[in-house]
C-alpha cells in the first residue's frame, strides 16, 4: 500500500507542475491542421488588443480537419477554420459550412490567389510543390540537374526520383495535379514512363525526404517532390554558410503546383466580430511577415516583406500549374485510382 501512496504522490507532483488554465472571459477558437505555427508574440498582440484568448484546435491534416468541420456543421468545433487549401476548398464550399466576409485586407492580396469570389474562404498564404534536387550529388557526377518534368523520364535520370503517393500525401496529390495540368490527356503515359524509369513511391513527404533524398538522408534518390521553399529552409536550419542553397528547385512552367491556404468563418459562430478581427489580423502585414519562418510558405499579402533567407534563397515559379478546385473535387478519386493503376499495380 505504501508503494501505491508513493505512486499517487508522484502523480500529484507531476500534475502540480502542469500549467494552470487561465480563465479569460472570451475565447476565440480556430481549428487548423497540425502543421500550423506562428510567433508567440504575434498571437499575444492580437489577444491583448481584443482582450481575448485565442485557442488553437489541432485537427489532424487538412483533409481530416475539413471532414471534421463538415461532420460538426450543426455544432461547430470552432469560430474559424484555417488551412483548407485549393485541393479541398470545393468540398467545404459545397457543404455550406462558411460565412462570407469581405475583408478590407483583400485589396492587398493578388487576384489570382482569391479563388472564392463570394469571400467565404480568404487566401492567407501559398506554397509551391516542386521537384527538388541535390546540387552536390549532380555536381559530383557531372550530370546536369533536371530542368523539367520531361527530364525525369530520360535514361540518365533513371532511378533518381522519389515521389509521394497522392492517395496518402498532400504534396503527392499536388504533384500529380501538376502533371495532369501539364500533360493533359496523356498524363498517365507520363507516369507509365516514370514507372519504367524506376521512380520510387513513398507514403508521405517525411519518408521521401528523410528516408530517400540524398541531401537529407542516407538514401540514393537525388530528386524528390518537395516544396519550392525547402531550399531556403535547409539554409535557415543549417549551421553552414551558403552562397547558393544546397538543393535546387525545378521551376519550369507548369512543373509546380501552387497550394493556396485559406481561412474562413464557420457558420453559426457566436463570435462573428472577433472572427472578422482575426481574419483582418491574419491578412495584415504583421502576421503575414511572420508566416515564412514558422510555416515555410509564402505570405499572400503583397505588402509583406520576405525574411532575408527567403529573399535570397527562394525561387518562386512564374507559371505554376493551375487546376480548377471544382474540377479537382469532382475528379480526385478517379485520378488517384488511375494513378494507382498506372504506377503501383
Amino acid at each position, binding site marked *: 500500500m505504501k508503494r501505491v501512496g508513493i505512486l499517487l504522490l508522484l502523480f500529484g507532483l*507531476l500534475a502540480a507542475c502542469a500549467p494552470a488554465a487561465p480563465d479569460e472571459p472570451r475565447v476565440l477558437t480556430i481549428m487548423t491542421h*497540425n502543421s500550423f505555427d506562428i*510567433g508567440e508574440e504575434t498571437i499575444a498582440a492580437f489577444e491583448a488588443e481584443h482582450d481575448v484568448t485565442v485557442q488553437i484546435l489541432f485537427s489532424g491534416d487538412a483533409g481530416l480537419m475539413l471532414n471534421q468541420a463538415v461532420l*460538426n456543421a450543426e455544432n461547430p*468545433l470552432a469560430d474559424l477554420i484555417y488551412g483548407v487549401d485549393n485541393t479541398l476548398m470545393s468540398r467545404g464550399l459545397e457543404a455550406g459550412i462558411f460565412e462570407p466576409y469581405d475583408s478590407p485586407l483583400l485589396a492587398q492580396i493578388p487576384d489570382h490567389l482569391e479563388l472564392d469570389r463570394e469571400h467565404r474562404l480568404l487566401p492567407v498564404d501559398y506554397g509551391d510543390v516542386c521537384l527538388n534536387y541535390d546540387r552536390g550529388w549532380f555536381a559530383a557526377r557531372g550530370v546536369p540537374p533536371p530542368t523539367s518534368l520531361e527530364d525525369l523520364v530520360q535514361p540518365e535520370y533513371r532511378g533518381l526520383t522519389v515521389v509521394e503517393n497522392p492517395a496518402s500525401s*498532400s504534396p503527392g496529390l499536388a504533384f500529380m495535379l501538376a502533371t495532369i495540368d501539364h500533360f493533359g490527356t496523356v498524363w498517365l503515359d507520363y507516369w507509365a514512363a516514370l514507372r519504367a524509369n524506376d521512380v520510387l513511391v513513398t*507514403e508521405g513527404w517525411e519518408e521521401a525526404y528523410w*528516408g530517400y533524398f540524398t541531401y537529407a538522408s542516407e538514401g540514393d534518390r537525388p530528386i524528390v517532390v518537395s*516544396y519550392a521553399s525547402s531550399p531556403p529552409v535547409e539554409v535557415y536550419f*543549417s549551421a553552414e554558410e551558403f552562397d547558393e542553397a544546397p538543393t535546387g528547385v525545378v521551376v519550369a512552367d507548369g512543373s509546380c503546383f501552387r497550394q493556396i491556404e485559406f481561412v474562413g468563418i464557420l457558420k453559426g459562430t457566436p463570435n462573428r466580430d472577433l472572427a472578422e478581427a482575426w481574419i483582418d489580423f491574419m491578412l495584415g502585414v504583421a502576421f503575414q511577415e511572420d508566416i515564412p519562418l514558422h510555416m515555410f510558405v509564402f505570405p499572400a499579402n503583397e505588402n509583406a516583406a520576405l525574411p532575408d533567407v527567403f529573399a535570397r534563397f527562394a525561387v518562386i515559379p512564374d507559371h505554376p500549374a493551375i487546376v480548377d478546385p471544382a474540377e479537382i473535387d469532382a475528379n480526385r478519386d478517379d485520378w488517384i485510382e488511375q494513378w494507382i493503376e498506372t504506377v503501383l499495380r
Partner: protein
Amino acid sequence: MKHASRTGLPGKYAGALLACLPVAYLLLFYFYPLLSILALSLFPAGRLDWVSLGRLVGSAYYLETLWFTTWQATLSTLLVVLLGLPGAYIFARYRFPGKKVLQALFTVPFVLPTVVVAMALLALLGPRGWLNLALMRILALERPPLDIQGTLAAILLAHVFYNVVLVVRMVGAQWANMDVRLVEAARTMGASRWQAFWQVTLPLLRPSLGSAALLVFIFCFTSFGVVLILGGGHYATLEVEIFYRTTYRPNLPLAATLAIVQIALTFGLMWLYARVQAQAGAPQELRPRHMTQIRPRRGRDWGLLAASLLPLLILLLLPLAALLERSLRVGAGGLANYQALFSNPRGSIFYVPPIAAVRNSLLFALAAMVLAVFLGLLVSLSIAGGPKSRSRLGRLLDPLIMLPLGTSAVTLGLGYTVALDEPPLNLRTSPLLVILAHTLVALPFVVRAMLPALRSIRPSLREAAATLGASPWHVWREVDLPIVGRAMAVGAVFAFTISMGEFGATALIYRPDLPTMPVAIYRLMSRAGIANYGQALAMSALLMAACVAGFLLIEQFRGEF
C-alpha cells in the same frame, strides 16, 4: 462451497456488479461515439447512401484487401510467437545481470512512432543502410543488393519488431511461476526435452500464449502506419483503406462500412477465442520465482541464453542503436540536436519544450495506466468468475472489451468530435479525452495480461482462506493479489506504453497546450531543415529513455511472487 465464487466475492451477482463501471465506460466512451460517427457516415441525409457504397459491392479489390489483411496478420503472429518464445523462456527461467534493463529495452519499440521506426529500419536496411553498405563492401558490388521498400518482408519485420515483446513478457510472466516439477516428472518418466516441452509446457502455457498471440494478431490485423509507410502503396490493410477513405479520397459511407467489417471480424475472433480460452485456463500449482529461476552456471546455460537472446538483440536493439547513433550524427552532430531541443529561436507559439513534452507524456501515460489497471481489474474479476458462476455477461464482456483494438483510430477519433460535443460531455477540447481514449486502447492489454493469472488460481486456496474466517476482501488481498500482482504489472507496463506511444486517435484530439513526445516528433519531422530532423531523432531518443525509466519504475511496484 457454493457461496464462495472464484472471484472471492460473495453473492451471485458479484460478476455483474464488478462489470458495471467498465461497461458504463465502454458505452459512453466507445459505443456512443462509434455509433454516432457510423450513423452520420452511413446516413448523411437521413438515408443510406447507396451510391457511395456501390463501390464496395462487386469490387474484388476490397476482398483482396481483406485477404491480405488476414494472411499477413497470421504470418506476422506466427513469426512473433516463434521468435518470442525462446525469449520468454530465458526471462522466465534465468536470473542474470542486466535482465531488468534488457526487458525494459525490449519494450521500447512499442512506443516508437511508425515514421521513426521506418527511419530506423532504413538506417539498417535502406539503400545506404549499414547492411547494404557492408554487403557492398564484402561482395564488391556497385549497387545495394537489398531493397526493402514496399516489400512484404519490411512489413513483417516491423510487425515482429513492434510485437515480439508481447509474447516475451506475457508468456514469460506465466512461465516464471509454472511448476517446474511437472516438466521434471515428465523427464523422469522418459520424455525427451522436446516431448516434455510439447506435451507438458506448451499446454500449460496455452492461456498466456493465447492471450499474447491474440493481441499480436489483432495489432497486425489493424496495422496502419507500418503497412502505409513500409508497404509503399503496394499493400493495404482494411485499416489503411479506412484511412484513405477518411482523408485524401473521402468516402465516409465506404469508410464506415469497412470499419464495421473490421470490428465485426474482430468481435467474431474474440468471441471464439474467449470461448476456447475460458475452458483452457485450468488452475495450476504456482511456484514463486525464487524456486523456478536459476542463475546460468554451466556453459550450456550461457549458450542457451545467447542463442535465445541473440536474434532478439539484433532485431530489437540494432534499430534502436541506429536511431541513437543518427541522433548524434545528423546535422551539427554530437549533442547539438539535444541542446537545440531546449531553445526556441523563432519564438514559436507551438515550440515544445522537451521537459514539458516528457512531463505531459508521463502524465497522460500514468493517468491512463491507473485508469486502465483499475477498470481492467474489475473486468478481469468479473470475467474470471469460476465455472459455476461463469456468467453470460462475462462471456460477452470478454470480446467486447477487446473491440477498441479492432476499431480504426481515425473513425473513433472522428466519433469523439461528433458525439462528445455537448455538456455534460463536452470533451472535444478537454485533455481528459486523451486519457479516456488511451485507456480504451490500453484496457485490453491489462485484461489479457491478468485473466490467465486469475484463472490459474486454485479455488481451494480461496476456499481455505474463507473457511479460516478471512473476509472476501482479505481473501483477495492475501490470495489473489500476490499471484495476480505480476500479471498486473505486465498489464500496467503495456497500458503505460500504449499511452506513451499512441498518436493515431490523438492526432485528432490532442491539445496543443499539452504536447506529448510523439506529437513533438511529428511536428519536427514534418518540415525540411536537417536540424529539425536531428531534433526529431533526439526527441525519439528521449522518448526511449523516458520509457525505460517508466518501465523500471513500474517494475518496482509489482508483487514478489
